């Protein structure tokens, strides 16, 4: 039993890449015969902007390995001074929520407005 086997059930939930990536059942990304037309696996690219504290997903690309992915990400996604730090992650390493579970995952939060900090009276003179 290799790691590959253990990871196999998650394959159906792999993100397909690109901003707002969603899992696409039956369209596993980035491994074996499903790697890009060039045979290279897909990587997701995260960039931390100059003033940002966190890395944000900016897109994806194909590369032979992580080092090449990092180089390509630099050229493709930071040409206009978008960032000061880059992460690349094999798309197969992502586990994403499924559209089928959207209601169960996200609906319950819709009517719980008390989770927003909107029920406080702000004393006069406090600067927001």
């Amino acid at each position, binding site marked *: 039993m290799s790691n590959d086997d253990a990871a196999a059930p998650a394959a159906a939930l792999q993100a397909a890449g690109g901003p707002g990536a969603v899992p696409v059942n039956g369209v596993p990304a980035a491994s074996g015969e499903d790697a890009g037309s*060039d045979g*290279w696996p897909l990587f997701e690219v995260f960039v931390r902007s100059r003033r940002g504290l966190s890395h944000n997903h900016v897109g994806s*690309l*194909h*590369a*032979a390995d992580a*080092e*090449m992915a990092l*180089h*390509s990400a*630099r*050229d*493709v996604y930071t*040409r206009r001074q978008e960032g000061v730090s880059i992460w690349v992650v094999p798309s197969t390493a992502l586990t994403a929520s499924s559209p089928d579970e959207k209601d169960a995952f996200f609906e319950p939060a819709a009517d719980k407005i008390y989770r927003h900090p909107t029920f406080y009276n702000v004393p006069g003179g406090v600067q927001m």
Partner: protein
Amino acid sequence: MSGDQLSYALRLGDDALILSHRLAEWSSKAPQLEDDIALTNIALDLLGQARSFLTYAGKLEGENRDEDDFAYLRREDEFRSCLLAEQPNNDDFGLAIARQLLFATYQLALYGALSASSDETFAAIAAKAVKEVSYHREYAATWAIRLGDGTHESGKRMQQSLNDLWRFTGELFEADEVTGRLVSAGIAPDPDLLRSEWDRDIDAVLAEATLERPTSNVLPGTGRSGRHSEHLGYLLAEMQYLHRLHAGATW
């Protein structure tokens, strides 16, 4: 002395300009979209360097010629670029990588030393460009290692490309009266010192790429005196066509 500086500015500017054009020819034709962008990024870096050097050349010359006049309105025999820069791509990515490795390694040593030049303009251009060129070298070295130490076929072709281009590398380090005077004045780096840095760096990459250092003879350089291979004329025809047809055309 300013005549020497003018010659030097044209050599450096023309090297960057001509290689920039060669790299731009990969636009939409590279093996991968990612490399298409990488090669044209490098081309744009070099174009920026060329603009700085040629603008400075115009100032040194003092005859009101700007960067466009130098780039678009000189004849083939007025270009002072090295022969390596004008060598064609032949639709061969490995060949472009070999050319880029040989040239970027030279440029990295050159700009590193030139950023300490007593000529403030040269020093400033070099100090800005050295970061760009450092990435060019890394990009080329990474690919040279992948291809050289890749499959039997990729290793064979990478070696062939290196062998084919090797004869043009001597010109990069040729000393003449111009460089002699500029070195004495602390304006230009000593070509011999650049050569030893280049040798070390290239040998390290070749070793990791499991490639042999070519043993072929190097040719005496003729580009600095305006005698070019047959390839430059075709390159200029494409590069200068629009400007010559519509003088002063802008975007």
